[in-house]
Structure formats: structure tokens, C-alpha cells
């Protein structure tokens, strides 16, 4: 089963690697942008799956870290610090520290309260972003692509795309190692039966907090890439609907599988783009209501593919 997942990971990564070539052949440079977006959301969704899928902690504020990573890039750029060697580590570090603080408080609660408190923290950061007039208020701020050394140039769309792909590959690899390690077993044990795990001698809080920080830091890295993709960092990235979208990607693809969230991000971003385009063609102005069609699709997956898209790819073996 683990072997199957690894094979699916590789298949997906190889397919993603072929996108720049396909975009060139089809003369559709837009595809490269679209798929870079897929990869970045895939990284964020994989990071969320670590705590939601394996930890059983439904964080409804994960987009906060996407925003923090983006703001790290944007704010440093505003102060003429455009080096990626500075921006990326700072994005990861600040997101990790924010996750430590948010997790420290949130993880003392459970269930519905955890959902509400993570949501509240993310909304607080969203409004903080809006109130920061120096950094563009609710418009956000411009941020050029991060600078790396000579041969690497993120202004080159293809290079940027492969950087995002490398980060996703690394996330999947590290995530896979993590969930199969002793740490991962303890994290899943806490999801399954917290009380028993505690009585077996495991201080559950510390394990959950560590997972929360790892997930936050990784999502911050995705945020840094997202700001690079858009050449923009804005508070809207942290809005609670974005956190909801990340949850949808994880569940749509298959919760607690790591591969599933990648599929979920792919499906979500492509549907968002092509559904709205198709609906716009059908009736002008209808494109923005793409979720009218997306909603029922989601319901169908929830009803008929309990293991998510990953379950569909391997019938009878989902979950």
C-alpha cells in the first residue's frame, strides 16, 4: 500500500515535470503559470495533511501560514532585501514561530474549539495585514521575484516552475519519512486514541505542537513561492475561505495519504480555472459562480469516493 503511494507520487511528479515541455509544444505559456499554482497549493495541502490527516487536527486557519510566508517575501522586498537566500529562510522561520505560538494556544483545546480557535487566529492575522498601511493595507504589496545566484533566475518561468516542483518532491519525501517514523506513529496514535497514548507514557501535546510547527513552516515556504508566483503579497491570501479551500483540497484528494492532497490541489486549481472559463463562455458573468458546479462535484466525491481521488485511482483500496 505504501509502495503503491510511492509509485503514484513518482507518476505525478514525472507528469508535472513534463508540463513545461507541453506548454512549449502547445504554445500555451499560461499553462506554466497555472501548474506552478497547482504545485504551490499542493505543497500547502500536503503540509495541512500532516496535521489534519495524520494528527486528526482540523486546522481551519492554515492559510495564515501561506500569508505569513508571502508577507516575509513582500516586506523584505519593500526594504530592498530581495535575496531569496534571505527571503526563503525567513519565510520558513517566521511561519514556524507563528505556528509555535498559535499551536501553543490552540492545541490546548480539541474538536470544534480547535477549529474555531485556529480560524480566529487566521482572521486576526488577515485583519492585521489589512491594517498594515505601510505594507499596502488591504491591497497588499508588490514583491519582485526572489534573487538567487547567477545561473538561477526565478524570472525565468520554467526555472521557477522547477523550483516549486523540487520543493513539492522534497515535501512528499520528507512527509512520507515523517509519518512512518516513531514520531509519525505517535502522532497517529494521538489521533486514534489520545487517552490511551497518554497512559502509555506519551506527552501528546508536545508531539502535536511539533507537527503543527512543521506543517506551518512548510506552508510558509509555499507562501513564499506563492508571493513569487504572483509577484505580490496580500492579506486576501490569509482569508478564511482560503483555509477552507486547503481543507477541501486535502479531503477531495484523500485525507491522510499525502499523495491525495496533491491530486486535490490539481483538481481544485484546474476546475477553478477551467470551470469558470467554460461557464463564462456559456453565459457572460457566470464564470465567477464556478463553485455552483464545483460544490455538487465535491458532494459527489464525499458520497461516492470516501477515500477521495486517491481512493478512485485504486478502487477498493481507498482509506
Amino acid at each position, binding site marked *: 500500500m505504501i509502495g503503491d503511494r510511492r509509485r503514484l507520487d513518482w507518476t505525478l511528479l514525472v507528469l508535472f515535470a513534463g508540463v513545461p515541455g507541453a506548454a512549449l509544444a502547445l504554445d500555451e505559456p499560461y499553462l506554466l503559470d497555472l501548474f506552478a499554482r497547482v504545485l504551490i497549493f499542493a505543497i500547502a495541502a500536503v503540509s495541512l495533511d500532516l496535521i489534519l490527516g495524520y494528527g486528526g487536527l482540523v486546522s481551519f486557519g492554515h492559510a495564515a501560514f501561506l500569508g505569513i510566508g508571502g508577507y516575509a517575501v513582500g516586506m523584505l522586498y519593500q526594504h530592498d532585501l530581495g535575496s531569496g537566500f534571505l527571503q526563503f529562510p525567513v519565510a520558513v522561520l517566521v511561519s514556524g514561530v507563528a505556528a509555535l505560538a498559535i499551536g501553543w494556544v490552540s492545541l490546548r483545546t480539541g474538536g470544534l474549539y480547535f477549529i474555531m480557535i485556529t480560524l480566529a487566529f487566521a482572521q486576526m492575522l488577515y485583519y492585521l495585514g489589512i491594517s498594515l498601511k505601510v505594507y499596502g493595507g488591504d491591497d497588499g504589496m508588490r514583491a519582485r521575484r526572489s534573487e538567487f545566484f547567477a545561473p538561477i533566475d526565478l524570472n525565468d518561468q520554467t526555472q521557477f516552475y522547477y523550483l516549486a516542483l523540487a520543493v513539492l518532491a522534497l515535501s512528499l519525501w520528507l512527509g512520507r519519512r515523517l509519518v512512518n517514523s516513531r514520531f509519525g506513529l505517535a502522532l497517529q*496514535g494521538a489521533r486514534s486514541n489520545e487517552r490511551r*497514548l497518554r497512559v502509555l*507514557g506519551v506527552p501528546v501535546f508536545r508531539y502535536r505542537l511539533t507537527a503543527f510547527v512543521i506543517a506551518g513552516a512548510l506552508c510558509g515556504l509555499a507562501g513564499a513561492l506563492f508571493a513569487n508566483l504572483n509577484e505580490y503579497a496580500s492579506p486576501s491570501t490569509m482569508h478564511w475561505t482560503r483555509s477552507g479551500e486547503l481543507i477541501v483540497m486535502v479531503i477531495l484528494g484523500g485525507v491522510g495519504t499525502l499523495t491525495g492532497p496533491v491530486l486535490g490541489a490539481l483538481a481544485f486549481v484546474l476546475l477553478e480555472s477551467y470551470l469558470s472559463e467554460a461557464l463564462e463562455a456559456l453565459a457572460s458573468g457566470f464564470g465567477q459562480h464556478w463553485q455552483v458546479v464545483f460544490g455538487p462535484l465535491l458532494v459527489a466525491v464525499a458520497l461516492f469516493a470516501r477515500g477521495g481521488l486517491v481512493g478512485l485511482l485504486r478502487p477498493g483500496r481507498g482509506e
Partner: protein
Amino acid sequence: MSGAGLALVDLSKHFGGVIATDRLTWQIAAGELHALIGPNGAGKTTLLSQLSGELSPDAGRILFDGRDITALSADRRTLLGIGRSFQGTSLFAEFSVLDNVRLAVQARAGHSFRFWRAARQDAALNQAAFAQLREAGLDHRAQATAGSLSHGEQRQLDLAMALVGRPRLLLLDEPMAGLGAEESLAMVARLKALKGRHSIVLVEHDMTAVFELADRITVLVYGRAIATGTPADIRANAEVRAAYLGEAPPAGERHAGA
């Protein structure tokens, strides 16, 4: 390995107006199997939870091996050598039987902040887990899902997990409940084998088992110990017979009837 002693001093626990533990002072000698009996609602499970650290008492102290552990969390107490099995079992139901015991083994090995190596290919972990399963007679079920085991097997697994790391004090909450006649005999035999190797607090409603296994028995009624003594003392105690009338027949009569 013959266990460690336990002493409670004036332990009290209230839930609103309900007194679950009433200024309980109580001692268990090292290596003793001490049964805790009493009618439903007497506060037996609440007491076990205070001993394991899942509930904290309102007042009083708990001494384990001479050390005050009243303020220690459940996980710290486990690492000091207190193991607990649960009423109605408490497993990681969707995990394999082996993974259940693996978790217990890695928990007792100190911390689990190991992010890199695959836990399931960890030879030390696997060997220790398998040894525990073999002792519980569950090694042939290692790969089965814990939730799919029979009730008796789940009981044995629950106990096996509590036994990891050879706790000096074992807290057993109704290990016989819901077992068939044959499974009950197997459990009694298993507990007999454990006797003397650990100090054991046994909460149990099966009086035949209690009188067969216990060195001493304490009768708990409304959070108070109304009697403590050897099985013979308890059987002869008039107050105990009175407290049990209408609840469970005193052991002597049950023996006579069965």
C-alpha cells in the same frame, strides 16, 4: 522485579456534590495483588484514574515507592513504572495489533522524537513488540487490525500494552468483564503468572476470580474503604455482606451456588 508499594493519604475527589473518593487512606505492599471491590458507583474506576494520573484528586497525596507523585501527569507516571489497562479495553482500533504494541514500546523507550527512521523497520522496536505479543499469545494475530480481534483477544492486547516496560505497579480495570468462561480462565491464569512480578491493583466484579487471585481485598462503598483484609477476613465481614446485599452475592454463596 517484584513491584513497588503504593500509599494513599487522605485522598479526596468530588464531582459537584457527588463524593467519588472520600478521604481515602490506603496502602499496597510491594508485590501484592490487591483487589478493589464494591458496588457500581463506589468510585473504583475514578480511583484508578487518580492513580494513573488521568484525574487529579481534590485533596490528599499519592505516594509511589515512597515518592510523592500526586502532581505528576499520566505520561510521567507511566515512565516511573505505572501501567494501566482499561475497562472495556482502550486500543488504537484501526492500527494493526503489532502497531498497538509498537506504540507502547516506543513510548516506554523514552521519547518518540525520531523523525527519520521507519518505525516499522526498527529491529529493536519490532523484537520488543513481538516478545510482548508472544507472551500474550497474540503473535499469530500481529498483522490483524486491533478492532477486528475478538473481545477476549482485545482484552489480552490491552493488558499486553499495559505490561510493556514491566511496570512496577499494574492497574487493572475489570479485565474479566464480558469474557466467556474459557477466556476468563485464560485471563485468571495470565494474572496468576503476573502475580508477584508486579504490584497489582485489580478492580473486578467476578468474585470467584477476585477471591482466587487477591492477597488482600479492599471494599469500597461511596468512595470509602469500609474494609480491608485477606479474602478470608472479607468473606467473614458482616459489614461487607450488608453492603453487598442486593448487589452481588457474597463470595461464599456464589461459590456454593456455582
